[in-house]
């Protein structure tokens, strides 16, 4: 009942944050010493007349706040400006590149969740066993190793040395199999997986390690809870205690962490797309930065921050759905 209301409430709450993000990116983009045009045209021979023309074209000769309001007015209508270098609307560019990134981030998350939760639970259950020690060491490696380096190593081993998997690019499952010359959907799917596997693991390892550590700590704590003692005292089987009584409480903080970690995953996507040559949003961001395409940079920053905010809201709602103690932000 309250859940729908809570969802609305959380989205309304997010509006100021989104406005804040747009202001922040706008300020950042205009922090540049010298004028943006010089930055945009860096390395090219330009005459002062050309600069003036470009300034007029992009409205850069007007005061900052006016330009911001213009930008905002555009944002509301879904117009994120125009890419100087590519001569295309930013919105189009982003739309064409967002798919691979979502595929990458979501599959990395799926990989992380599927591996970390069971491992974390078993480690907590067998606390101080060899299994626990090994999994803790694995997790330690996971949080200490740069994802892009893991990517490089995976390429070296599985693509370069063994030649089992491709080292670059992705197969988009939403394109038809014929585009790739695949014989059918089954091969299409297999190929998608083959291309996705390495970048997914590279991006997902840090998430897996983080989640596993949190899961282990939370389960240990939950297993020490009084309610577990109660369940034991009433003859509840250990497996039920682990999977139901302790787990249900322990997963609550995990949900929050999953949402917040989206921030690392989205950042990591830039690196992984760079390493694996995937034409996603991260790669686009990298190219935009190299070209100092500042409308495009602002657009991508906005979109990525929005994705993060939405992710956090979704996990918050999931949390509220699972934890009966959460009040839905209304006064009782």
């Amino acid at each position, binding site marked *: 009942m309250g859940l729908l209301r809570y969802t609305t409430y959380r989205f309304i709450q997010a509006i100021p944050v989104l406005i804040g993000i747009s202001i922040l990116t706008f300020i950042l983009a205009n922090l540049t010493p010298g004028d943006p045009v010089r930055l945009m045209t860096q390395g090219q021979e330009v005459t002062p007349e050309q600069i003036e023309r470009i300034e007029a074209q992009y409205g850069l000769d007007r005061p900052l706040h006016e330009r911001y309001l213009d930008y905002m007015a555009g944002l509301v209508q879904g117009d994120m400006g125009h890419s100087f270098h590519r001569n295309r609307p930013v919105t189009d560019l982003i739309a064409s590149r967002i798919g691979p990134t979502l595929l990458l981030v979501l599959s990395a998350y799926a990989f992380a969740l599927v591996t970390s939760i069971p491992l974390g639970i078993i480690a907590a259950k067998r606390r101080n066993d060899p299994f626990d020690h090994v999994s803790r060491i694995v997790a330690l490696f996971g949080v*200490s190793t740069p994802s892009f380096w893991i990517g490089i*190593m995976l390429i070296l081993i599985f693509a*370069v040395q063994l030649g089992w998997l491709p080292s670059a690019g992705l197969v988009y499952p939403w394109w038809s199999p014929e585009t790739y010359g695949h014989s059918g959907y089954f091969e299409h799917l297999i190929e998608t997986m083959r291309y996705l596997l390495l970048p997914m693991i590279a991006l997902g390892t840090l998430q897996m390690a983080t989640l596993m550590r949190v899961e282990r700590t939370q389960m*240990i704590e939950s297993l020490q809870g009084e309610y577990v003692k109660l369940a034991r005292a009433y003859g509840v089987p250990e497996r039920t205690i682990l999977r139901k009584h302790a787990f249900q409480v322990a997963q609550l903080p995990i949900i*929050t962490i999953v949402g917040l970690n989206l*921030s690392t995953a989205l*950042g990591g996507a*830039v690196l992984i797309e*760079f390493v694996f040559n995937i034409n996603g949003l991260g790669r686009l961001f990298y190219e935009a930065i190299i070209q100092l395409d500042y409308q495009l940079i602002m657009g991508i920053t906005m979109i990525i921050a929005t994705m993060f905010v939405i992710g956090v809201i979704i996990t918050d709602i999931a949390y509220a759905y699972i934890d009966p103690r*959460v009040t839905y932000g209304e006064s009782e």
Partner: protein
Amino acid sequence: MAVGESQVGSGSEPAEKEVEARTGWRNTLKKIKRDTTARWGLYVIGFVLAVTAFTLVDSNLSRFTFGAISDFALAEALPVLEHPERLPAPGEAETNQPPMFHADGSLSNPLGTDPNGRDYFTRIVYGAQVSVSVGIAATFLGLVGGTAVGAIAGYYGGWIDDMLMRAIETVYAIPPLILIIVFTVFVSGGSPDVRFAIIGVGIAFIPVFARIIRSEVLSVREMDYIEAARAAGVKDRNIILRHIIPNSFAPVLVYATLQIGVTILIVAGLSFLGFGAQPPTPDWGEMLNTSHGYMHSNVWLSIWPGLAIMITIMGFNLFGDGLQDALDPRIND
């Protein structure tokens, strides 16, 4: 009926447990000494810092550099040791040498040489200096900024708190790597380097530290000894200086230790993309960037810097974990 009275917000922790956690520095140190994890972390950090110190001494006191022990065969064999960023003159060194245990390797370049013929071992060693100092500097910056924002928000509360927290949330919403890249690139006017990276990372971490400091200040403020001090007529300023700051700072320092690892990780990523340390600075991330182009021809170049990053970060993580365990009575009973 107590409906609606005891509703708990998300993730709230029992307060009494935290009280136990604050039982003075001495106790904490004792626990750290007993904690194997923390000890191993300290060893690793100590090792990396020793390497760093070694290379730091270089510029001022030539006595303690590798160069000074030049009678030592190994040192003699390292032609470009003193200036890892200096490019050897043509013909001075071979490029893309494999490491010494390789059939074609030689003892004079234990980890081989890079495409420019520079000794890779020397560069890795110098890389520790860059990574650790950048990691610590950036974390420190974030800590200072975060402490200021968090303490003000936590202490004053009310609308100041609200405004600051909203601002913090906004910064927090942009993934750090993205924020840092945008910041360094725009602020440096298109020519990023490691100084901008440090400032960028510092700013990106302000929200993290501000949140922790704020919640610590808020929980310390609820302690009875703060009320006792007020009841005794102690001035506000003294309450903040003598009670709130010393008591809320310890957990934050622990967190900062863990955060150094994260900082090194991010800076490495930044340099790898080419937006952090610039060549010829011997930075691990930058070295990985360069070696990326030689991935197929010289595999080794991509391995060593990554291993170095991993070991360093692992040291800080181990130490941070140990500290957390030592401070957390729930795990440590």
